[in-house]
Each structure stands twice: as C-alpha cells, then as structure tokens.
C-alpha cells in the first residue's frame, strides 16, 4: 500500500480532533512530497550530481528565454552574424569565451539559445513515450481480457514498426517545426517496449494481497490503479523516462545532423553538422566549434543517466521514510 495513505491517515484524524492544525497537515505533506524526495536525492552523489547538471541546463534555458524576451535583461545575447571575429578559438577572448563560428557568432550564445528548444523537445518526447506506455501497460495488465488483447495487439504492432524509417517518413510528410511535436515524432513507437514491460509487472502486482484488499473493499479501478499499481511501477517508469529523454537527445541530434529534421531554431545537432561540414575535424583552429556542442550533449546525457541511477531510492518506501522528519517510529528498525 502506498506510503502516503498510511502517513496522512493519522494526521488527518489529529486535525479532525483538533490535535493538529491545518498548517501542520500542509507541512507534513510538504515534507513527504517535496522535502523527502529532495533529501533522498541529495543523499546519493549520483542523483545529486545528475540533478545539478539537469538544473544547470534548466537555468541555461531560463537565461536564454529571459535574454530573448523584450522585458528581461540580455544576459546572453542571441547569436548573430558578425557578433565577433570569425572562427575565434575557445578561451581566446572573454567576450566570446567559447569562441565563434564561421559567421562570427558566439558559440556560447548559440549553445545557450539552443537549450530551450532542446529541453522542450526532450521533455515532450520523454513525457509522451512514458505516459503512453504507462497508461497502456497498466490498463492492459490490470484489466486483462479483451482490453488486454486489444492493447497488446496495438503494442505489438507499434513494436514491429521500423522506428528510424518511420521517423524519417513522418518528418518528411509533416515537416514539424514545433520542438514538442518533433520530440513526439522521435518517440513515436518508443513507448511500445516500455508498455510491454510495465504490463508484465502489473500482471504480477494485480494479485498482491493489498490490491486484492482494495478490490474486496470495492475501490474503483481508477483508484486501485492510481494508488496501488502505478506507485509500484514508478521507479521503472522514471528510469525509462530518463532513458527516453536520452534517446530523444541522441535521435534529434543525429537527425538534425543528417539534415532530415526541418529546423528553424538554433540546435546542437545543426551546430555539429555545420562544424563538421566546415572541416572542424581537420583543423585544430576550428575544433572548438565541434567539441563544444558535443560536450553540451554529452553532459546533459550524463546528468540524466546519473539522475536515473539514483532515482530508485526515491521510490523505496523505507529509504523515503528514513529521510522524512514527520515519520519517526516506522523507520527506527532501519536506521543505521
């Protein structure tokens, strides 16, 4: 059974009989829902570092967004031709700390201003594939019968579609411009494998005693799925969410590099392509133009991997309880 219901139960009762204020209820909720996961995350160096890296990119995206709008200060100027001398190396001139490209655009500007679109694309792709996979996997596994057969057939069909040619075809037909749409296209059939795996897990969970208890008590299916099934598959889902995000990064960069995806915004893949076609691999003078976007891609991917590796603890009730100030007795036997 979920941690949350057992913890909030007594608190709600206390509030009802006047032994706890509403403020304390909120505080406990905040402790359980927000602070505890953060403490758990912070206790593991991988999650800590991964979170910091992901946060760093979110800050970059915010900086780009603020700089591009009219009302905010220009923290990092939007990249423009003639911003600086052409092909200045990295760390040669602090006005362009990461150097410039063949147009004289600051590579720092290009990296920063490509970040919002990349994040939109990554989040859209990862959310689409994991939400769809979770929904189909959980419903299919729990409901069984005809629903399961139909959903499994759909999943199997999606799994057999060749991913890359399908993406190329869709990109050519739809010519999507919105990064979120591109993210969804990139994961157009990536959800199927995850849906299958989740279905398998749900098949074993559905016969567990606490799920049976809920059923016997007459709980509606939606509540059983929400409170009893989904939380137990969440670690798996979250790890796959992060893996999907990584897949979207690599997929988008590769397809932008190959010139298959249409684009109208700065993009790390296009930066790589421009650097490559400008002979960056043949000259040390131009190499920074290739290495810096590559580093941006690798760092974000690395951050997501570390974050994913540490996330399992977030869903382990015992570890969570150990880090929750509002839960004391239950955790005593497990404290080190």
């Amino acid at each position, binding site marked *: 059974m979920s941690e949350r219901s057992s913890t909030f139960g007594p608190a709600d009762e206390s509030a009802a009989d006047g032994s706890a204020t509403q403020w304390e209820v909120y505080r406990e909720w905040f402790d359980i829902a927000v602070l505890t996961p953060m403490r758990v995350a912070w206790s593991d160096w991988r999650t800590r570092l991964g979170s910091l890296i992901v946060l760093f990119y979110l800050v970059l995206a915010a900086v780009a967004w603020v700089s591009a709008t009219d009302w905010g200060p220009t923290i990092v100027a939007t990249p423009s031709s003639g911003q600086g001398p052409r092909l200045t190396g990295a760390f040669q001139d602090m006005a362009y700390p990461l150097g410039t490209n063949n*147009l004289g655009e600051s590579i720092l500007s290009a990296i920063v201003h490509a970040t919002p679109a990349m994040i939109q694309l990554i989040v859209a792709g990862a959310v689409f594939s994991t939400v769809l996979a979770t929904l189909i996997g959980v419903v299919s596994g729990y409901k069984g019968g005809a629903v399961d057969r139909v959903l499994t057939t759909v999943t199997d069909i999606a799994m057999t579609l060749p991913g890359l040619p399908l993406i190329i075809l869709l990109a050519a037909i739809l010519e999507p411009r919105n990064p979120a749409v591109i993210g969804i296209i990139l994961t157009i059939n990536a959800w199927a494998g995850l849906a299958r795996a989740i279905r398998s897990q749900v098949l074993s969970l559905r016969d567990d005693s606490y799920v049976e208890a809920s059923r016997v008590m007459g709980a509606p299916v939606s509540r059983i799925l929400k409170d009893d099934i989904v939380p137990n598959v969440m670690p798996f889902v979250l790890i796959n969410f992060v893996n999907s995000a990584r897949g979207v990064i690599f997929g988008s960069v590769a397809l932008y590099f190959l*010139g298959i995806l*249409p*684009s109208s*915004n700065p993009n790390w893949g296009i930066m790589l392509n421009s650097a490559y076609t400008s*002979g960056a691999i*043949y000259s040390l003078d131009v190499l920074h133009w290739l290495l810096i976007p590559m580093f941006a891609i690798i760092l974000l991917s690395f951050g997501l991997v570390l974050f994913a590796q540490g996330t399992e603890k977030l869903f382990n009730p015992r570890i969570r309880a150990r880090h929750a100030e509002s839960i004391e007795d239950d955790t005593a036997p497990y404290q080190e």
Partner: protein
Amino acid sequence: MPSPSKGSDSGARRRFLSRRGLIRSGMAGAAGGSMLLAGCSGDGGGGDGGSTDDTAGDGSADTTTGGGEPVVDSFVEPITVNPTNYQYNHLNLTTPFSHAMQSDQLQRYFIDSEEFESYAVSVEEFGEGSAVLKVRDGLTWHNGDPGDPVDADDLYTKLVTDDIVSDSLSTLWTDIERTGDRSVELTLDGNVNRDLFRDALNYYWLETPYRMYRDYVERWEDASSEDTLASLREELRNDAFEEPKGNGPFQFEEVTANRLRMSKYEHHPDADNINWEYWDLERVSTNTSSVLLGMEVDGIRNYTAPESVRNDRPDALQVAFLPAQWGHSLPFNMDDPDFGNIRVRQAIAEFIDREACATNYGTFAAPVEAPSGLVGNIDGQNEPTDRWTNKVSDEMAQQLHRYRDPERGRRLLREEGYTKEDGQWLRPDGSRLSMPIKVPAGYTDWHPVYQTIVSNLKEEGIQSRMVTIEATAYWSNHYLAGNFQAASTGWTLQRTSPYYVFDMYYNIDASFMNFEPSTLEVPPVGEPDGELQSVDVESLMSDLLVSSGEENTDLTDQLAWITNQSIPMLPIQEINDQVWFTTDDWNVPAPDDPRYQSKWPLWWFPRNGNLTAKTA
C-alpha cells in the same frame, strides 16, 4: 524537316524540365555533392572539354608528356554510388551514366575573355535566320576499332533529342535539316543574336549516336501534336540503355560494384596528348574532404571544400578556382502581402549586407555589385571584378542601384505604412513583419549566406529565421511549388548572356515565385524613387533574343534596370568553382594559369595535353 513541337505553349514545360535538371546537377554539386559525375544529370550538369582543331594538344611546356614511362597508368576520379546501377541513356535522369571523358563537348567557353572555341561541333555559317553546324573531322564512336564516324545523323539526333526533352537550345530554332555528311542546318526563330546562340551551345555534349536513338528521331519527325511529343518525351526519359556509348578520348572498359574503368580510345583526334591508359571512377566515402586529404583520388572537377581543408591540405594537393557563373539569391514570393510589394523588396535589399554574406560564405565568393542579373562579379583568383559591366552601357552600369542604404530601406517601409516600435518593424495592421527563409537542409555550404541575411534582418527589427528543409522536399514541395515567403536558389542557370538570366526570372522561375511579369511596374530609369510605371517585359525579351549591336545593349539596359528595381530574386553573391588535382604523379598547370578559366579544367586538360602523368 518541320518541327511539330515549336508551339509556344510548350515553352513553360520545357523550361521547367531544364530547371529541374539544373537543380539536380549544378547546384547540388556546388553545394558539396560535386562528386556527381559530369553529365550524369543531363546536359546542363556536367562538364566536358576539349579544344578546337587549331588548339588541340597545345602541349604547354610545363606539362608535355615527354619521354619515358608514366609512373601511373590510371587517373582516379571519385564517385559515391554503386556504378553497376548506371544505365547509359543520359536523357533518362534515373542513374544515368555519361562521362565527360567518354563524349566530347560541342565547344569551349573562356570565362575570362568571354570567347567561344569550337570543339566537337563548329558553327560554319550563321546569319539570315539560320545556322549551319558541322561535326569535327576524325571523331568516331566507340563501337569498333575504329568505330563509325560521328556524322550529320548523330548531330541531327543530338538536336532532335534536345527538342524532345525541351532543353534550352531547342527554344532557338524552328526547323532542322541535314545539309551534308557532317553538317546540319537550323532555321532559327528569327535573327537570333549570335553570342546568345553560341552561349546556348555551351555545356552540350555530342553523345547521341543515331543508331541508338533512331526510333525516337523518326517518331519525332512523324509527330503531329503536342500530345504525341509529350508521350515521346516520357518514353525517352524512361528508356534505360544497357550499352555504353561515346566518342571521347576514353571508352568504357568494365564496371564492378566499386569501380567503372574507361580505357584510352586511340582513335580520338586528341588521344596523342594522353600518356596514360585508364580513367577510373572509384567509389569512395561521401566525406569528400577526407577523400581529398587522404589523396585517395587524382582529381575532382568541382568541390567546395571548407577553408580548413584548403588551408591544411598536403603540398601535393592543388586547388584552382574559376567562376561558377552563379551564386546564391533570395527569391521572393510575389503573392505574399509583404514581399509582393516592390518597395518592401527594395527595403529588404537595402538591409542585407551582401559583402558580409560573401565573406561568411568563404574566400571564393564576391558580393554582387548591382543586383540586376548581370553575371561577372568574381574572377578566377577570387577577386571581385566588374566584368558584369560589359553587358550594359557605361551609363546604365552607373545608374543601377547598389542597395547599400539601410536608411532608404527604412524610408521605403514607412512610406508603405510600416512602422517601427521598440526596435521592431510592424505591418500596417500592427502585426510584426517577418520573413522566414527556406533553405535545403543538406546544402550546408549555403547556410552561412542565409544565416547572415537572417542576422541582418533581425538587427534591423524584422523577424526572420532560416528554415531548413530536407533537400528533395525543399525543391519539390517548397521552391518549385511556390510555397515560401522567401527562399534560396541560384540566380543564374550558369549561362552568362543576360537573356538567359532574365529568362529565368521572367519565365522559368516566374511561376515558382508566383510572379506575373505582365503586371510588373517599376520606377523610371535613373529614378529609383520615382513613380512606378508599367513595363512590357515579354516584348523586351522577344526583342532581346533577336537583337544585336546597340539595340542589344539598349534592351539589356532596360531589362537590367527593370530587374534591378523589381528584384523578384535578389542576387547576393557570385562564387567560384574549385577544381582539385594531386601533383605527386601528375603534371598540371599552376593554379593561377588562365587555362583554368574554362569549365571544367578536369575535362579540357587531358585533351589539350595540360594534364599528363609524370614519367619515370
């Protein structure tokens, strides 16, 4: 014999086909895919070469074959496809094989001196509305030892098949007949200008043996309607030949999955200038820079290499430049509420820094001095020239507007009801003025030009962005379909006569830009800010085709002015082709030698003895 296909209604289609041929070849090549074989994409795409009888084998002192055994027996040129997929009908655009060393080019054009020199075909007579063309003596087909002589039937076939596929030369004549063993007479469409006719003969190869195309020629002679011709065209375009054909200095030898080998054809008139045995097309990586730097091949006709490759190349890898006779342009959609307005187009032209575009493209580009469709803004040493002024009068060369005045651009926009608030230009209805520019994604060497334009416009307060689209989809679904506000393409069809450039703007590409030249209004000559007046472009074009002397200059002046003011597509810059040779085993002229100034040195040098294998 009468030509049933000369109706004016066929003009648009024939030009459309020519345009597609060009897109498939010239621009793609210049965009980095220049390892395409010459001539693979039809007449317009390749290069071939030779010299006239009087200059053949000029054997310059630095590259004469000399005595001794050559250190290599084959010249290696790159291809990136499986050569076993080739078929040998060059008029079928699906995997055609037609190599410039296998067939001879009709004539040679010297870009620097603007002179023509006959090669496989000479113009024996010209005037009074007719032209007599004659095949070079001694040319034979590769079907024997020696093979059949190339004669009037073959030249006749060349011109007829050109008409069947509606290529550019066919627009100039109305009737054709054989007048001797090796001569053909064309009845021209009026007193066609001689230089214009010679220009039309450029970049044509004599690669049509009558014995292989006889059926098509006879059916063309019997055709009585446009429908019959259309059906004939479709058949010819889809016919795949299994047998190679040619009359050049190298003949087909063998083909494997990784190499197509041609061997020296001893009976070619210029075979004595060649001191090695084979011309090999070897399949290599698509990373041309790597192929070059690894010295995997002996030469490349035209490859636009990154600066870093040129700067860091091995000593034995030589690059020379010659004007490509085209450059990048910004075509506008004339149906667009903003850019259909001549004053808005002029304002945009004032805001764009063409010099920065050329600089960002690389050292082998020069900005167009006065955007008006006149070719000749760069020389073979990558320096700007004013060769373009030779096409118009001195007075007009001065009058053509230069578009370097952003302040005028702002005034023009304000006069049209646009306003600037908080640094951003707004339309009369209050929305932001924006101009997305569509560009083929794979043509990465084009991108700096359009990124610079985007940057210029953003700095001026106009929303702009470069929209990259997969190359095939770009041409078919966007540019050719007129689906853009502003786009990207070359501003010439690689011919220097102003007529052909104007024909591209007002005829061939007009429908792509949703342009109705008949409704065009421009300011009076010499008064860029004067009141707009109607002009009859079609009539001026018809007159230009058959004009000469002062009349020709006067008409060119008028059309240059109209183009300079209406700018349906804004010429940005003119570029150079880059020809590559390795010099460890080969003798070639030095890069600054004027012999490079003719398309393309890789095809002319072997024939003239300017490319020879070093001897032991």
